[in-house]
């Protein structure tokens, strides 16, 4: 089956440090085989598009899986797998745009919280800001000036924008998911798996499918 896999630069596996055989001259990399397919323990780990936002890293690959495939909420594990081709659009700006899209979602959640707290002027100013040299500091400043849910959400907006701006889209995506969860709950939950956080993860995955032409 076709799936996707994030790696560190040079096709180095996340967590394991295993260097994957890369495709060459238009042919897929050689097959890599595991003794079994066991979630988080053994096997070739990969993603459906819906799983991708949880495992963001520098390189994104199309992979082919064979044999028994086990699936959890956010990953696939198979007995055999190989790299088929690199998703070039991810490395050529897609990752940066993904991070910014997540940060703008966090910004909008923060603007909503400011409106709810009666801070209409700052809400309008923040909601209109899409400059990533300005957004982190603007949101951080509003975090310091407000309290309660408005401070919480502008803090998330500042963090997400900061990480998007420094090229860490995975962190920006995580912060935004947590922000979405806390926005729905109306308080801090510290959980990236609440229903609202997972809905944000689904939105992020849909962005990737659309902009990277996945599937």
């Amino acid at each position: 089956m076709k799936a996707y896999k994030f790696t560190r630069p040079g096709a180095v596996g996340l967590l394991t440090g295993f260097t994957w055989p890369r495709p060459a001259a238009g042919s897929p990399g050689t097959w890599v085989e595991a003794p079994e397919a066991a979630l988080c323990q053994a096997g070739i780990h990969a993603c459906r598009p819906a799983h991708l936002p949880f495992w963001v890293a520098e390189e994104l690959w199309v992979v082919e899986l064979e044999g028994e495939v086990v699936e959890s909420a956010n990953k696939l594990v198979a007995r055999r797998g190989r790299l088929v081709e690199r998703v070039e659009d991810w490395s050529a700006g897609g990752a940066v745009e993904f991070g910014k899209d997540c940060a703008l979602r966090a910004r909008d959640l923060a603007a909503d919280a400011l409106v709810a707290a009666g801070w209409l002027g700052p809400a309008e100013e923040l909601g209109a800001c899409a400059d990533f040299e300005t957004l982190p500091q603007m949101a951080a400043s509003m975090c310091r000036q407000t309290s309660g849910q408005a401070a919480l959400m502008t803090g998330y907006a500042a963090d997400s924008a900061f990480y998007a701006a420094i090229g860490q889209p995975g962190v920006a995506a995580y912060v935004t998911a947590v922000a979405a969860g806390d926005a729905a709950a109306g308080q801090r939950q510290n959980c990236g798996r609440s229903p609202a956080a997972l809905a944000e993860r689904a939105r992020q995955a849909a962005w990737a499918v659309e902009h990277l032409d996945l599937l």
Partner: protein
Amino acid sequence: MSEPMSDLACQEIVELVTEYLEGDMEPERADLFEQHVVFCQGCEVYLDQMRRSIALTADTGADGVDPVVLDQLMATFRSRRG
């Protein structure tokens, strides 16, 4: 339906790393552990250091350790456990 587990902080990653590396962690918690490590550079480095340390010391047995040092080590471990 149970509440989803809270996300893990860096300090918890440090405390759980042995459990993770020994494969003793339940899948949902292992998932949280891995998701944290993937985007936290400090914890990724720590996990890598632990893996390397285990690999480097795998062949080291207690026989080659000076008895005085061994006693000191065991005393330290016992005192840390309370």
